[in-house]
């Protein structure tokens, strides 16, 4: 399928100048996103929008217990209801193979965050677990008939209280190539004790929901053993391999399509119950099934970001130079999946210190497995470290910027690896200048009912690349088409890849098409970990090199531009980068592992940033309003100034939610989410979001393909701390429990 825009307004905002002078015409420019016109007109077809012949609709029934055994399910009333096709339960569902265990050799194994054998078991492992799916001719009928299903449970004892189960935590083991969860250098505890200045904070952050505006939805259609699935997945290839394995069919029989995705943020990175059960139900009823999850179903069946308990201790000299850093975290996982998270990794990257100790403990509960959400670990861990640094700046009477300059480092403090590229002082200078940091005046200035304060914090996110495969074709009709199974959940991947192709081949941007979002295309990495753009840029550049040299070998017609040469040749020219199957695919994976491990031993690559903000705290109500924001970022080379700034802003906005309003509440006695919807879980609204100034260094990373480092996650890191530091400046209160709701700001909240 093609997603190349057809509307005339999809053309770039700045026309190409005749006769190219510099190499890069398009890369770096703020070209309008290609899918913009279709989306503002309501023409873009998201998964739930796509008409499908003979479609039936699914609706889940959720278990209301954290641990239970299903004694009996009575589906008679539901089945008898007119319009109901069938009710699928563990009594009648087709069998699925169990999920694979995680392996670096097959990254698709990472697609399953949950080990629950949905509708293949009578065991309930978490509150909200689906225990039946009603399939009906209409959505309304399915939803209504789900209320007619009666389930008898034998309720079993469950462990659902994160704090109370703290003592059952086990230490997370550090594995190679995985993000940092533990490590030591020197004797951090002794150094801490010997330090003239010590800051110690105990902090907590709650669970967060991704809350993409598009709820999870799947359409599944079986034709014999051929399976077609429409699903807004962030990982088309992983989803396809996972489904092939679970349903016992050859991977070539499975096609997964995700041409338009309404946001993901990590929540659509794994294969959750909704996807599996739609495919299962379609197999059972032998008709196409669509299951559009309600917001409640999304929240109860798709994992959240883990809550954290953190302890950060800093030991320093009186001039602010660090002697010791200790960062410990406790995270919540599940008895049926989930895992640890790199909450403490930020402390192994930001500041020079002779002694360091980081560690992570994991509490397993009878709850829905936790999962990765935008900047996993770093979003919450940076709140801990950067709050403590702010406190240290205060205690040694230094400007927070000056304290960070004194502790800047060009090597990772834990392993002593060189950073491929780190310009933190330049970022702080750029950010302070744009914000007017030096002119901010003393904290706690009164403006009517409000106390005004200012805060800053650093942002950091490690950068990786994955293997990516592409096909690049120059057609005799005068177009260039790039194909890859990448997914665009809103970052504008097609737009930037078209810019790269246009520059690499020196062709006009409007001649470049990008087709994506379909597993029939070459394998691309998942959209996660800020890896997709860099990985695909590398593959695209390689493809363009190959295409150019193929065209040069065409003979006499090879004169002039690539498109002229191919036109004269009279036949399309196509090149392939990467192998999707067979021995060469294996070899490619092994090469990627080797390169990644080797690269990690030599240098640490990352995206960086410095946030500066102003808050106004209502002295009577404790309400915090963020009134100004400036973020300076180093994301390597910038492919598209407009979409990159939007991604960074998006991260900061999500960070404002983390700082001020977002808190997933679980009833600790039952393990049930309280208010699993957008009415109780408050994501930022327009009134919460000030004008956010984004400033980019635009300096290519020397070790990254075309100097590109991902921009999707760094924006959210540090935001929680920047806001809390500004509240400290305004009120003198060091708040260490997120979110900073009025009760906490006024000191009225009971905290553990």
């Amino acid at each position, binding site marked *: 399928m093609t997603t190349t825009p057809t509307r005339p*307004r999809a053309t770039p*905002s700045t026309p190409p100048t005749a006769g190219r002078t510099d190499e890069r015409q398009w890369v770096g420019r*703020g070209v*309008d*996103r290609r*899918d*913009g*016109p*279709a*989306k*503002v*007109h*309501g*023409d*873009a077809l*998201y998964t*739930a*929008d796509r*008409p499908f012949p003979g479609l039936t609709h699914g609706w889940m029934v959720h278990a209301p217990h954290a641990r239970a055994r299903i004694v009996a399910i009575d589906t008679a009333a539901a089945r008898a*209801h007119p319009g109901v096709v069938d009710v699928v339960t563990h009594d009648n569902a087709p069998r699925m193979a169990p999920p694979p265990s995680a392996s670096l050799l097959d990254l698709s194994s990472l697609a399953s965050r949950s080990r629950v054998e949905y509708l293949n078991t009578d065991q309930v492992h978490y509150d909200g677990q689906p225990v039946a799916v009603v399939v009906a001719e*209409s*959505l*309304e009928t399915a939803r*209504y008939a789900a*209320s*007619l299903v009666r389930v008898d449970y034998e309720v079993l004892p469950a462990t659902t209280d994160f704090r109370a189960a703290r003592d059952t935590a086990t230490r997370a083991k550090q594995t190679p190539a995985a993000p940092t969860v533990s490590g030591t250098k020197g004797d951090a505890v002794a150094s801490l004790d010997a330090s003239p200045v010590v800051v110690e904070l105990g902090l907590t952050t709650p669970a967060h929901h991704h*809350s*993409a*505006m*598009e*709820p999870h939805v799947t359409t599944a259609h079986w034709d014999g053993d051929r399976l077609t699935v429409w699903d807004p997945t962030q990982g088309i290839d992983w989803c396809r391999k996972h489904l092939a394995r679970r349903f016992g069919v050859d991977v070539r029989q499975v096609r997964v399509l995700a041409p*338009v*995705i*309404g*946001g993901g*943020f990590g929540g659509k990175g794994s294969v959750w119950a909704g996807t599996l059960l739609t495919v299962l139900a379609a197999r059972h009823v032998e008709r196409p099934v669509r299951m*559009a999850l309600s*917001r409640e179903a999304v929240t109860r069946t798709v994992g959240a970001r883990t809550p954290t308990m953190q302890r950060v201790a800093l030991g320093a000299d009186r001039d602010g130079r660090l002697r010791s850093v200790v960062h410990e975290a406790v995270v919540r996982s599940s008895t049926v999946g989930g895992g640890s998270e790199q909450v403490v990794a930020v402390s192994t990257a930001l500041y020079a210190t002779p002694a360091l100790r980081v560690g992570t403990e994991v509490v397993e509960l009878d709850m829905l497995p936790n999962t990765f959400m935008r900047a996993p670990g770093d979003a919450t861990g940076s709140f801990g470290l950067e709050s403590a640094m702010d406190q240290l700046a205060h205690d040694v009477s230094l400007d927070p910027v000056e304290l960070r300059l004194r502790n800047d480092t060009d090597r990772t403090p834990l392993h002593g690896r060189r950073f491929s590229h780190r310009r933190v002082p330049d970022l702080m200078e750029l950010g302070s200048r744009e914000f007017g940091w030096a002119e901010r005046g003393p904290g706690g200035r009164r403006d009517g009912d409000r106390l005004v304060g200012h805060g800053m914090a650093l942002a950091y996110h490690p950068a990786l690349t994955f293997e990516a495969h592409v096909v690049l074709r120059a057609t005799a009709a005068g177009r260039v088409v790039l194909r890859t199974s990448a997914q665009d959940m*809103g*970052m*504008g991947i097609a737009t930037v890849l078209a810019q790269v192709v246009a520059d690499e081949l020196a062709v006009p941007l409007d001649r470049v098409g990008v087709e994506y979002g379909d597993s029939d295309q070459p394998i691309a990495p998942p959209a996660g970990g800020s890896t997709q753009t860099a990985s695909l840029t590398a593959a695209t550049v390689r493809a363009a090199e190959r295409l150019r040299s193929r065209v040069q070998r065409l003979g006499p017609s090879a004169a002039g531009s690539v498109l002229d040469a191919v036109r004269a040749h009279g036949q399309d020219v196509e090149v392939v980068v990467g192998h999707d199957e067979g021995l060469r695919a294996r070899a490619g994976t092994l090469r990627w592992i080797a390169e990644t491990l080797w690269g990690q031993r030599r240098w640490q690559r990352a995206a960086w940033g410095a946030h500066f903000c102003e808050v106004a705290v209502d002295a009577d109500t404790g309400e915090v309003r963020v009134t100004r924001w400036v973020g300076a970022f180093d994301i390597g080379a910038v492919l598209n100034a*407009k979409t990159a*700034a*939007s*991604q960074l*802003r*998006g*991260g*900061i906005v*999500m960070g404002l939610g983390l700082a001020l309003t977002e808190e997933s509440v679980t009833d600790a006695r039952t393990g049930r989410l309280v208010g699993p*919807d*957008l*009415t109780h879980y408050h*994501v*930022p*609204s*327009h*009134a919460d*979001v000030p*004008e956010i100034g984004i400033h980019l260094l635009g300096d290519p990373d020397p070790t990254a393909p075309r100097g590109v480092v991902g921009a999707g996650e760094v924006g959210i890191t540090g935001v929680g701390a920047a806001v809390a530091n500004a509240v400290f400046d305004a009120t003198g209160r060091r708040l260490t429990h997120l979110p900073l709701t009025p009760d906490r700001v006024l000191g009225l909240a009971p905290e553990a």
Partner: protein
Amino acid sequence: MPAPPPARPVTLTVNGRRTTASLEPRTSLLDALREQAGLTGTKKGCDQGACGACTVLVDGRRVLGCLTLAMQAEGCHVVTIEGVGPHHPLQDAVVHHDGLQCGFCTPGQVCSALGMLAEHRAGAPSLVTEDLAADAVPLTSAEIRERMSGNLCRCGAHNGLVAAVREVAESGSAR
């Protein structure tokens, strides 16, 4: 739950076209538009009135399609995102200011903004309006943010959306 009452024919005028469909009383305007009329530009983000993705204009006023029964709109003029374009300046401005990423909230934002601008022209104040007695309330960014806060955007495209609405409001081309 009691069994649902049966369907009956309902005539709606959507984007200037009269259509009659057999609808159950429980069917929301949002589901009727999406599932019956095939107008899928209007999105379902929550089905509970919390996100604004389903915003459409009913007789010129912005309403949440998920909280409106289709039968309530009988005899009314419904305008969805498909009826706004194809070349409304606000749509162009949203693209130009990059007031979207995933685009899922965008149709609701656009419809809501058009309804909001009409409310503003009619003199409606908001919570942040300083002078309630003033003849004309200046449509500042703060006013736009306050008035658009019923439309959530998880991608964080707020700045671009506000810039687009402001530009169109100032140019007077929103009608």
